[in-house]
């Protein structure tokens, strides 16, 4: 295993520039048009946060199953998970824009809306903030504890540390899933306070898992010390996981739609009616075509998964669709037409993304590119057979 550290200077500089420019422009947006800023920020932030939080999820799954796909991306996963506290700081603008985003904070709306009144014990500003704090504690604890333990393994293989990581990861996943689900209800689902869907939390996690896989494939392709050890088999494994998560995402998205469409109750269908209005219908079909059909067939082909460069190209396209998905979840509440894009959408995406990538690079370069876990050593020694 290589002792070199990861050279992230190529990523750090442009990321930092993007962060500064994007954040500065967003700040301008915040002052000039707060309502517009709030939507753009929520969309841009969500896209990147799904990668940071998804990395924590995958990290814990990796500790549980220790599949051979996980060892090469373990350090990038840890690096991304360690950006979570900073990403949560970037959530503060959302907290400052609650009035612009969430109808349930409007006194005059509540006064005439029985449904929102019934939900007030959950949908209220202090509750929103307290829950945010709870989620933050859970995620930050898990991310930092697990990555600190993993760093201990740099000194040499230690079965006890691995056991400890497992012991944290198993209940950690339970807490993580609960926090992610309720976070998705708070931040995304409550944009339409009348609407509800019990699969929403699971769907949010699956979308995050998919975004993370795509991001990790790109990292694996771009970061030389990792690319050097990644075998075709690992690329294949990641490709298969991407395939599985694409199908899983489509399955849940379609399941939610089918149940609501068949039930045909107004309290649920309006969410889809918004997304079937003239312009949004096109986006819905784009999501179906490019989020499912095209990647499904591309990832069915074995060669596309075994060659990392081909897989990375596909991943790049798919990660663009992930943005469309987040946009499709959030924007129809505010915009009658999907083409009502704003320069702030770009500024927020670039600003948050630049910050995330810069922090990710800083974390990654402090780490050894590969972990010294004994399971990984076994895996290298055992040639292509891993469990």
């Amino acid at each position, binding site marked *: 295993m290589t002792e070199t550290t990861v050279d992230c200077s190529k990523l750090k500089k442009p990321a930092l520039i993007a962060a500064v420019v994007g954040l500065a422009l967003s700040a301008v947006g915040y002052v000039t048009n707060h309502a517009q800023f709030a939507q753009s920020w929520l969309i841009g932030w969500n896209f990147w946060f799904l990668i940071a939080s998804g990395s924590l999820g995958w990290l814990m799954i990796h500790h549980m199953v220790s*599949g051979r796909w996980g060892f090469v991306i373990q350090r990038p996963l840890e690096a991304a998970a360690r950006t979570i506290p900073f990403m949560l700081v970037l959530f503060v603008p959302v907290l400052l824009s609650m009035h612009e985003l969430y109808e349930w904070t409007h006194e005059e709306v509540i006064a005439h809306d*029985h*449904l929102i009144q*019934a*939900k007030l014990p*959950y949908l209220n500003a202090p509750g929103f903030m307290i829950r945010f704090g709870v989620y933050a504690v859970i995620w930050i604890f898990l991310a930092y504890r697990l990555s600190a333990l993993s760093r201990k393994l740099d000194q040499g293989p230690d079965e006890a540390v691995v056991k400890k990581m497992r012991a944290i990861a*198993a209940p950690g996943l*339970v807490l993580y*899933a*609960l926090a992610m*689900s309720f976070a998705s*209800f708070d931040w995304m689902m409550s944009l339409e306070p*009348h609407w*509800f*869907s*019990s*699969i*929403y*939390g*699971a769907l949010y996690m699956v979308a995050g898992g998919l975004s993370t896989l795509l991001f990790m494939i790109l990292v694996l392709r771009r970061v030389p010390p990792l690319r050097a050890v990644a075998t075709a088999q690992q690329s294949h494994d990641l490709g*298969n996981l991407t395939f599985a998560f694409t*199908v899983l995402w489509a*399955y*849940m998205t379609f*399941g*939610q739609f*089918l*149940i*609501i469409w*068949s*039930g*045909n*109750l107004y*309290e649920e269908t309006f969410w889809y009616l918004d997304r079937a209005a003239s312009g949004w219908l096109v986006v819905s079909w784009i999501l179906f075509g490019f989020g499912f059909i095209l990647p499904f067939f591309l990832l069915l082909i074995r060669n596309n998964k075994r060659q990392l460069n081909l897989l990375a190209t596909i991943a790049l396209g798919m990660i663009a669709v992930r943005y469309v998905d987040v946009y499709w979840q959030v924007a129809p509440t505010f915009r009658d037409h999907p083409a009502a894009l704003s320069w702030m959408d770009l500024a927020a995406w670039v600003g948050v993304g630049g910050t995330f990538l810069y922090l990710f690079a800083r974390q990654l370069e402090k780490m050894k590119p590969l972990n010294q876990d004994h399971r990984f050593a076994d895996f290298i*020694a*055992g*040639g292509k*057979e891993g*469990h």
Partner: protein
Amino acid sequence: MAAEPATKALGHEEMTAVIAEGHSFETVTDKISKISLTPTLPRQIILFGLIGLMLMGALMTSVAMLVVKGTGVWGINQPIGWGFAIINFVWWIGIGHAGTLISAILFLFRQEWRTSINRFAESMTIFAVMCAGLFPLLHVGRPWLAYWLFPYPNVMQMWPQFRSPLMWDVFAVSTYFSVSLLFWYTGLIPDLATLRDRAKSKLARIGYGMASMGWRGSARHWQRYEVAYLLLAGLSTPLVISVHSIVSLDFAVSVIPGWHTTIFPPYFVAGAIFSGFAMVLTLAIPVRHLFGLKDLITLNHLNNISKVMLATGLMVLYGYGMEVFFAWYSGNQYEGYMMFKNRMTGPYWWSYWALIFCNGVVPQLLWIKKIRITPLPLFVISIVINIGMWLERFVIVVTSLHRDFLPSSWGMYAPTKWDWGLYLGTIGMFMFLMTLFIKFLPIISQFEVRELLHKKKHANGHHE
């Protein structure tokens, strides 16, 4: 089944072993095929089969009663038209799912520990789906006209209604049964050839010879065989998920409170895997004990199965949690009433809390490693989970139906003896078929165990 002494001091090697040391192709093949080729069975298995046969008597009587008198002999009536029939249908289908999961998904993930239990689990699938299929078939009231469910040109000029999830069920269950059967049989072909070549009696040779279709282990055959098997595994994986999702849609696409919720498809799938793995344990623990298969179904297998049960159990629990949260959060008064005033505190409150105890509380014991590798408590837990998953379907079907939107159409449900007869009868049928399987077919996939042995030898060679 006393706890094995080995559990006390398990080394790393023993815990990760999927097959014990010191076996060769000859010994594993012999060990497995001997079960099918010796004319006698352990007394316990014979007893098991006889109980099954006896219960099948109850099945026959109940079916006869139903056919003669009609569905009125069951406890179903307005407003609960879906009583035991649907509960048991979903229960059996769910049990079947672990078989496909073990043989297909674990195959795709190259989980070697699947090898010793996949044949067993696949057979369980086939028999469970057969039991499941009986219920909707009989529930139509006139089972001899059940073919009306299929789209075919007929003199009535009528066609099925494809917007109905019950129609999707017809396709899903029949596809599931067909594909599982193909998968099972394909996996059996090389093993049947082994039995043909090892059988002493002429009758057995002819029987296994015909069933193995003249398999001779040709390299060309193996090549296509492996491709076909891999593809079948790849197809079965989404299939098994689709089947239970469609079963869940039987409920979810309606607007009945407690049924109409979007978490249903994945939550039903998790529940199916949960109950299926529990059934695998219920069957595998006694079998490994009785046939001395502890070398092949190791404690590592039990540990892994328990982990899968724990994980899927937590997913199911997540589903229960989401149901409760959204019953309140939806702000829909009917949903709220159904959950808090009816399911939790209504006349069937005991079934809801028993369900939470069986599926939510008891499986948490599996967090403890010592329990995961001790057969006796595992056996008990697996039975508790089987009961819990049955109760889950009871809660879903009965509590949602018995009080709908109008209090004037409320009613209670109680199964009759014919309901119980049919239910116990299918358990008997399952037991009997399982006994026949144990007697006549290799209960562990011989060629895959040989392959595993070969791989292991190869890997050891590399290290040295």
